[in-house]
């Protein structure tokens, strides 16, 4: 006869909850690290930012430009974001290409009229397969290159202007199709037309990083970033925002 197992000896459950998504980064934590992942901010020059009381201050080599903004129009700079212009912030994201989604929460500065770079998932050289958001100079565009073919999904209608709070949500489907969604100043989310299917590559190019404000180490944008999340599967905005609350 086998002795019954003694319950409770097989494991001891920890209370620490680690990252609930492959990537969660919130500016309000005032760290470049994402949950469970070390972030790297790349910038060598001295740049300025604005504190919670409207005072301009200097940020030195690799020092995050924490930038306080007033999102509710009451003249109080109550929200802190990371201002990225010539710099970028990256984390190692080594997920293979699968059905996934993500959301970038930011305040539009002049990214859209410039390169429009919001994020990229690729290596330093921006090789493909890759996934990224840039602009057409008037609208944000999600791009997926599988190593052979590139497909895009481009917003239309009202575009964000400087000072708008923008949430760009993106979906990469299991068949390689992509779709971009946009919310401006908490109005109703609108969607771009989905692209055609584009068979997923076996892996993202080289040693892939998830980069805010740059495509590889190259083209940078100009935005105050509030948060970023990457999820497995195609998630709703409500689900993705739970990670950023």
């Amino acid at each position: 006869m086998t002795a019954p197992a003694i319950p409770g000896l097989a494991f001891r459950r920890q209370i620490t909850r680690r990252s609930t998504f492959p990537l969660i980064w919130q500016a309000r934590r005032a760290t470049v690290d994402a949950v469970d992942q070390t972030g790297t901010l790349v910038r060598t020059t001295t740049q300025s930012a604005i504190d919670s009381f409207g005072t301009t201050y200097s940020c030195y080599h690799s020092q995050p430009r924490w930038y306080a903004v007033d999102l509710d129009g009451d003249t109080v700079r109550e929200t802190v974001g990371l201002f990225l212009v010539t710099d970028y912030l990256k984390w190692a994201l080594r997920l293979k290409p699968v059905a996934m989604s993500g959301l970038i929460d930011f305040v539009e500065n002049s990214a859209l009229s410039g390169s429009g770079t919001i994020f990229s998932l690729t290596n330093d050289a921006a090789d493909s397969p890759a996934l990224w958001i840039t602009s057409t100079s008037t609208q944000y565009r999600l791009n997926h290159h599988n190593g052979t073919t590139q497909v895009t999904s481009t917003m239309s209608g009202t575009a964000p202007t400087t000072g708008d709070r923008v949430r760009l949500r993106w979906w990469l489907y299991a068949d390689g199709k992509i779709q971009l969604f946009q919310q401006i100043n908490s109005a109703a989310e609108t969607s771009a037309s989905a692209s055609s299917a584009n068979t997923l590559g076996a892996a993202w190019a080289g040693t892939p990083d998830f980069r805010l404000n740059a495509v590889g180490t190259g083209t940078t944008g100009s935005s105050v970033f509030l948060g970023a999340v990457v999820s497995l599967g195609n998630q709703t905005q409500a689900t993705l925002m739970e990670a950023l609350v």
Partner: protein
Amino acid sequence: MAGFTINGIDCESTLKLYLDEAVGLIDIPPRSIGSEAIRGRSGRWFGAQRDQAGRELKWSMILQPATVTAAARITAEHLVRDAFGAGMLSIQFNDGSTTRRIDGVCTELVITPRRGSHPFLAPISDVDIRISCASAFWESVQPTILALTTTARYPIELGTGPSTPLIMPMGATSAQTVTYRTAGGDVVWQIKTTNAATTDYSIVDFRTGRVKKSASGVVTDDEANAFIYTVWSTFPQPFDPQDGDYRTSQWPTLEVDSGAVQAIYWKSWQ
């Protein structure tokens, strides 16, 4: 709008969990103050606060899914159990004007289908939740950034509880002294750091008690500046509203004698 979220999940709109009674939201958790009897005299001498328990939240809630069926109620009960049973919880509470957060663990969850009907048919449940929090204090969701560049004393706007800041002296190659004073101008603590270049900066983390240095973007432990207090105090010291008066917005102050300082802190609430 007033409400709660658990790990970002809205209790009302997503879980259909409506607050009936909340205990512990604004209590002062038990604390002990060091004290000694004074030999040969009456009374006692008070020292510093020794410790304080974490906040205990006790909520009575009503679970009422949009669809009034027992099946919907059972599905909702599973969602509630999974949401609260998931290890460390990040709880956000909005009282209608300010959103505050605290981390805690659900130590008890009791779900009781409403009396007066058969438990397998009841469409509504009563939910009693007990959460033990790591801290005695709520914390603001958003940090406050205070940048100083002159020797003037800058008021530090705080909540009703003590806040532990991240302080970054920079912009000078000689020793920089950062001074924290009460609203009345009394020095509570001073720290002194030295950097080799104006573009280097020190990172004094009052949350962890660690001191680091960033030189051309390379961050290292800064043992040379490990003992940084020039006015002795226990490291780390907070920004404390007791050094001013929250009710009338009288705040303690921060200043630097040269270069610049950046302080990042999260307002704290009792």
